[in-house]
């Protein structure tokens, strides 16, 4: 079974082709502002150098957020168009799932966090079996820290963002085989239904909600 994995939810392009638990090829490129222009070109090169044809892919696992709104949409548009037009299986996972599962050291709890600015983060808490103890959410870092006081065991943060006054942060380096193996049997969804996990309303919607509540 050949699986295409794609994550463009940060400034990195993370992409891999995994066949039966073996890494056929991978991309870990910090593209930043060039992500939208270069992502598909890099993916097509990956197919070329691994002698993979698009038709050979059996399933796509795509990260649907949280993270950079634009980045998420780039990857999701590529993945859902690919899956729809070639009638391929597709499923989505969260960027926080991928971060927790890739951690190479053993802890009782894994806490992937992504900087959402203004003192807020996208975060989730997983136990050692990757069950969500605290679901994916947009939360203030201070509130998250309070939650951690009650965690019964060892834990680590996982992030590629920089946070002041935050210790025990492991950097995130995706382990593609581990991620793909963990999610390869996750239920497929209709490509048309593939959508982003923003975890946050747009500013206009937030303002409208505030006005409605007043």
């Amino acid at each position: 079974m050949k699986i295409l994995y794609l994550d463009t939810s940060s400034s990195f392009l993370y992409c891999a082709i995994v066949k039966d638990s073996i890494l056929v090829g991978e991309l870990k490129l910090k593209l930043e502002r060039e992500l939208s222009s270069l992502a598909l070109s890099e993916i097509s090169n990956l197919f070329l150098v691994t002698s993979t044809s698009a038709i050979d892919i059996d399933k796509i696992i795509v990260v649907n957020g949280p993270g950079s709104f634009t980045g998420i949409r780039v990857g999701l548009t590529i993945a859902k168009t690919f899956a729809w037009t070639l009638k391929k299986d597709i499923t989505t996972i969260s960027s926080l799932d991928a971060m927790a599962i890739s951690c190479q050291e053993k802890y009782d709890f894994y806490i992937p966090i992504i900087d959402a600015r203004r003192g807020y983060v996208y975060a989730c808490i997983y136990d050692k079996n990757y069950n969500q103890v605290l679901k994916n959410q947009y939360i203030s870092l201070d509130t998250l820290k309070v939650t951690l006081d009650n965690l019964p065991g060892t834990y680590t943060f996982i992030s590629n963002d920089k946070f002041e006054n935050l210790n025990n942060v492991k950097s995130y380096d995706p382990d593609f085989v581990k991620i793909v193996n963990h999610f390869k049997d996750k239920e497929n969804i209709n490509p048309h239904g593939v959508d982003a996990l923003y975890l946050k309303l747009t500013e206009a919607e937030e303002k409208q909600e505030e006005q409605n509540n007043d």
Partner: protein
Amino acid sequence: MKDVYILGIESSCDETSASIVRNGTDEIATVVLSQIDIHTNFGGVVPEIASRHHLKNITMVLEECLNKANMTMKDIDAIAVTYGPGLIGSLLVGLEAAKTLAFVHNKPLIPVHHIAGHIYANNLIKTMEYPLIALVVSGGHTDLVYMEDEFKFQHIGGTLDDAVGECYDKVARVIGVGYPGGPVIDQMATLGKHTYNLPLPLDDNSYNFSFSGLKSAVINLVHNEEQRGNIIDKEDLATSFQEVVVDIITKKTLKALKEFKISRLILAGGVAANKGLREKLSTVCVENNIDCSYPPIKYCTDNAAMIATAGYFLYKQGKFSNLELNAKSSVELK
């Protein structure tokens, strides 16, 4: 000669659209999914919301278009997509979808300038002949373009600030008649009489336009009248506003036609659906022996048929892009 089928994709603002056009003239199928009802709640297009909806809709729109045409991707010769100008987040969804289709089906990818698309919408009605002057008027554009020949654009003038459609939306908001303002004000203008004295904006020797002063004049007029306790007659104000807008656009368009010695005018863009503007330009063109054409309303607003049509001419010229094609919020028409 073999027929050429171009799949066009347009997502530069708040319409997700796909279309298949044969040989740059025959529309086989078009699907337009408008978000207008969503953005009406916010008084205008919210870029982030537009991008989110494009992502939700893109593959459904593509599928419906192919189904409507009873075609598959195998029948498509190339994929044409709007790469700019427009809202960057919106553009990116259409662009990434187009790039992905080009990649997995190994089809040529054709980048189309949004304004070129609006202009070439006219080719769906009758074969365009050159030279001509194109007047492109919409929510994002107010441009006068001289075309010496096929796909040879010379931008001779444009707005220095607000686009004309944007000005309609703002005036509509000030007088409280909702969004989008263009069709409402156009309709109201037929019911009122020219009562209010508004300045003719940027009435100079150039081909440029400026609507921000006119917009401010309307805002000030409304506020001043309100402070005096006078009730504004909205229909009369709509008539006065539209008359000024139509006058200046007609004046500069006619100046361009005369100075470039051109006898063909084409209208394009969402505001080309404005009845007041169509009527005035048609009358002036008849008086001056100028052939004036404008597309039906479905081709005036954003749609992918115009992108597929423009894409056909680029296909003939072999103007393809690689997969590094990026979206551009602003880009010159060349």
